[in-house]
């Protein structure tokens, strides 16, 4: 695979074997606006810089010189992105938490939250019945919903025995990391 490259060139001053894509074509490039391909080349350079723990990388080819610098004090080079244009940062910038951490609020209800940014589903498939309805009694470990991200379907389970008092999100809607999905009354008994 292409990513199995030598990782030996970690120290400054050592020549790095650059992927061919970084060097571009031999024909004279347009020195004007950045083409999409050049944009990708710069992104590749940034990745290369980070991967090899370098502080500076400069490439000159057919009259075009690109220099990428990495301030050591700064942890990451690339900017982070927000998710689906809505509020909240991307999954990676947030401290991830185990699924459905139970959090008891002042009313004594347990809040089940989403462990990832994704899409909320109340049923295993569009035509199937919902896993749970408001008013249902659930057991610890019972599946309450699915949150999908990147075609990975995450089953979210209840961490407590109790009764679903509120379902806070509509099926197929996007959810944020840590967003409340269900309220469960742990004191209720069937």
């Amino acid at each position: 695979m292409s990513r199995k490259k030598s990782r030996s060139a970690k120290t400054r001053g050592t020549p790095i074997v650059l992927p061919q894509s970084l060097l571009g074509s031999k024909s004279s490039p347009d020195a004007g606006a950045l083409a999409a391909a050049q944009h990708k080349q710069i992104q590749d350079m940034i990745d290369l810089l980070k991967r090899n723990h370098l502080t500076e990388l400069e490439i000159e080819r057919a009259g075009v010189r690109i220099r990428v610098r990495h301030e050591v004090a700064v942890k990451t080079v690339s900017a982070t992105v927000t998710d689906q244009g809505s509020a909240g940062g991307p999954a990676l910038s947030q401290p991830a938490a185990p699924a459905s951490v139970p959090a008891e609020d002042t009313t004594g209800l347990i809040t089940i939250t989403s462990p990832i940014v994704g899409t909320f589903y109340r049923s295993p498939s569009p035509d199937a019945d919902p896993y749970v309805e408001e008013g249902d009694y659930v057991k610890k470990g019972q599946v309450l919903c699915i949150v999908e991200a990147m075609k990975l379907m995450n089953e979210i389970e209840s961490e407590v025995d109790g009764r679903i008092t509120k379902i806070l999100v509509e099926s197929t809607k996007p959810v944020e990391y840590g967003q409340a999905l269900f309220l469960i009354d742990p004191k209720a008994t069937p």
Partner: protein
Amino acid sequence: MQPSSPLNVHSIRSLSAAQALGRRIELYDRIGSTNREAFALAQQDVEHGTVVLADAQTEGRGRLARQWFSPPGVNLYCSVVIRKAPGADRLAEWLSWLPLMTALAAAESIETVAGAPVLLKWPNDLLMGDRKIGGILCESGQAARSGPFQVIGIGMNVNGDRDDFPQELRESATTIRHETGRPVDRNRLLAQFLSELDVCVEELARQGSERVALAYRRRCSTIGKSVKATLTDGGEFTGVAEAVGGDGSLTVVRHPLPADGRPPEIQHFRVADIVHLRS
């Protein structure tokens, strides 16, 4: 339908270089769904790398319970139990990249064995030309005793005829043999896939997503293309796919650009059906 050499566990093991994946392989002539079986086994605490493989599926399924065409004797239907999830601080990264990385491993293995180019459509569709030759469905769950696990499911259309697909799939699906004109040894293809996936899983678990992301971006044919994204709630967004982010999301810039020079709308998708538009 063309005959294809039978699936054979010893053959797969002898051809595979995988350390962990495939140490245990459960081979079925016919099964409901390999993902469902692997999920059930994971809940019963089977070891990391356990593979469920079937010659045919009666209830093969994809995302949102869409049916996966699973005739006997010609294709690969395979699910792998993964128990390598890192701690809470890197869990989101792990879950985000696992499905994308699986597509990377599959694309590499198909190219190696079939000797023909494979396009990778974000997040994890495998295409030859503009038709689908493979799909991936990952699931994540929790076992009472052995804790969190993931199941990686993959279906590859290997040696069938395109005419065998149901009418509604013929325009969007194809097989490796149809595209290359040569049948492929399914045992060899699966062994190659397990070998590639084994390396990727170790890399993602130990080093994080950096190198996996770099390799994925090189491979992903969606970047730079005009696309239409259909969201789960039915909404649509048309634009140019500019990048795959550090969290695996797809950045799409709305096109056409606003005529009054205002900045264009930009979306970062984590869940969407993407269609590559001809432009």
